[in-house]
């Protein structure tokens, strides 16, 4: 019986290895996503184009403009007339215009079509331009823990991990199982002495292996390319990730039992699994910002617990005991999912 199981695993591995395009996508997605989020999509401020409109030049104003040009986050694009200020913004030649009136008072005009740049830019620009005024006032002593430079990588790496494993384990396995239904091979598999669940477990093993490879690449990319500290113990990060992998695989099994075509499996995966992870897991939007009706929903999204635990382990460097609650919830969810999907698995066609 053991050799049987191995030949089932071999068959699944051949399916994956022969579909080179899909395999490349599966192996490259994590790297591409990491680099994309790491370098291209960042909410940090960079190269904000600032124009200046001055009515009457004074020493004070010149000093301020010099400070502006020297700042690495801003690019001084030149002087404009006050009436041209809006044209500059409209034509996107400037993201912001600083207007000095006759008395040397400042007004900031911002292109807020991109809310993120406008928000963080206006605060930063304000603090740069009015530094002297601020120094006279009492300052709060702000101390940012764990991520002092506010690097966005620290935020999205755990999120991407939560997303990738669902994508590969749940989506790919459910599609692979449903493919057998669609191509008619399931019919032949069912009319055999082997319990189909065995074949399906064999199907999951190669995807489990691929996910382990992905876990390795994600950890390597975050440590050496994105400089995420991985301050917690590597063992506990891997341990909780393996639990999450099992959970994702059983989620995939469940999706496959309720869908009859590959397209349906893809849609269910995208709508029921991807969207909640992106929107409701705290990966992009803080859970606290959700409307109150939606507030309880994240508690049943497995990715929320996983992402939270990974943040604690990876970024805050807490010991594994700090995430006991998350681990227990994830194990409980896996047990329920495995149970329900095995129960729902039909070894007939109707």
């Amino acid at each position, binding site marked *: *019986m053991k*050799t*049987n199981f191995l*030949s*089932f695993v071999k*068959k699944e591995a*051949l*399916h994956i290895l*022969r*579909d080179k395009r899909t395999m490349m996508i599966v192996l490259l997605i994590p790297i591409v996503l990491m680099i994309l989020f790491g370098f291209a999509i960042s909410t940090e401020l960079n190269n904000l184009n600032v124009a200046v409109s001055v009515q009457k030049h004074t020493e004070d104003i010149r000093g301020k403009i010099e400070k502006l040009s020297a700042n690495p986050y801003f690019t001084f694009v030149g002087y404009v007339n006050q009436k041209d200020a809006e044209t500059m913004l409209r034509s996107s030649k400037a993201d912001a215009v600083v207007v000095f009136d006759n008395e040397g008072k400042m007004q900031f005009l911002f292109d807020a079509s991109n809310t993120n740049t406008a928000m963080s830019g206006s605060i930063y620009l304000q603090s740069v331009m009015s530094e002297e005024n601020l120094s006279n006032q009492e300052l709060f002593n702000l101390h940012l823990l764990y991520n002092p430079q506010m690097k966005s990588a620290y935020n999205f790496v755990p999120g991407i991990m939560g997303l990738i494993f669902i994508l590969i384990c749940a989506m790919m396995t459910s599609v692979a199982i449903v493919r057998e239904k669609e*191509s*008619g*091979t399931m*019919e*032949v*598999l*069912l*009319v*055999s*002495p*082997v319990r189909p669940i065995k*074949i399906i477990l064999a199907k999951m093993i190669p995807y489990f292996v691929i996910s382990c490879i992905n876990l390795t690449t994600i950890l390597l990319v975050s440590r050496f390319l994105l400089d995420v500290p991985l301050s917690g113990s590597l063992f506990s990060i891997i341990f909780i990730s393996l639990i999450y992998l099992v959970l994702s695989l059983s989620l995939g099994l469940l999706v496959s039992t309720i869908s009859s075509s590959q397209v349906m499996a893809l849609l269910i995966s995208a709508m029921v699994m991807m969207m909640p992870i992106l929107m409701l897991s705290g990966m992009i939007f803080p859970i606290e910002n959700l409307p109150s009706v939606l507030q309880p929903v994240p508690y049943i999204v497995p990715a929320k617990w996983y992402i939270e635990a990974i943040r604690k382990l990876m970024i805050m460097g807490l010991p594994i005991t700090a995430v006991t609650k998350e681990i227990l919830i994830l194990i409980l969810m896996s047990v329920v999912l495995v149970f329900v999907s095995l129960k729902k698995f039909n070894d*007939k*066609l*109707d």
Partner: protein
Amino acid sequence: MNAIEIENISKQFGKVKALDDVCLEVKEGECFGLIGPDGAGKTTLFRILTTLLSPDNGKASVNGFDVKRDYLEIRKCVGYMPGRFSLYQDLSVEENLEFFAALFNTKIKDSYSLIEPIYKQIEPFKTRRAGKLSGGMKQKLALCCALIHYPKVLFLDEPTTGVDAVSRSEFWDMLAGLKAKRITILVSTPYMDEASRCERIALCNEGKILTTNTPKNIVDGYNDELYAISADNMFELLSLSRKVKGVKECYPFGESHHLVVEKDFDKEYFANELNQIKNLQIKKASPSIEDMFIKLMKR
């Protein structure tokens, strides 16, 4: 003991009655044909017998095992080849065969004597992917996979659909070879001309079995007079013939039309009635399974 016993099986999908009170017996070692057009319920019956579907009503057993209660036992001892090509297109011929051997907990060499005559023909292509095989070769591979565990009963659902005439004939020769190994075969086909290759057949239509007998007895049971007619304008011939007195039935049959007539039919009168049709040919025809099928279907 009968290899297959079906008693009053019914199966309904929504409002469609796929099978309506079907009874059938197939003897051990027999090659039994289920003949009927698409939608006759052949595939549904196969799926019930291979335990993929549960019947709404009635009882059925395969090799002595009840299809509902002992379905796991049935799955061990039957071979099933679905109507659609259901092997892995991205695996090679050899890999498919190895996988199915593992599925049935056996080795290729254990049943090689059984599949050898068939496998010999596809062996030169054993490293080719199954998806790249021709229709005839796919069908041979599927048959090998269905035979790999030396089944007692073999279910072949429309095995010759979409296969060229030569391969079809070869395929029936292979089935004849399997008969010598005491394997019971239930095979379905929409081609009436293949019926004569079975020992016994059942004609079925719209979920009902019309008749069950040997092909010869079915043909012999045809007691109407039958003519084959042809002319230059076949379409006109068909519609005009139907209006002539003494004609029960007229339907297209290959290159000619078959004319079923009453006892008092007069050939001269018929030719006279249709004298405006050019090149009218009329001659006696011997009935075939298809004529019987059309007769039973219209009743």
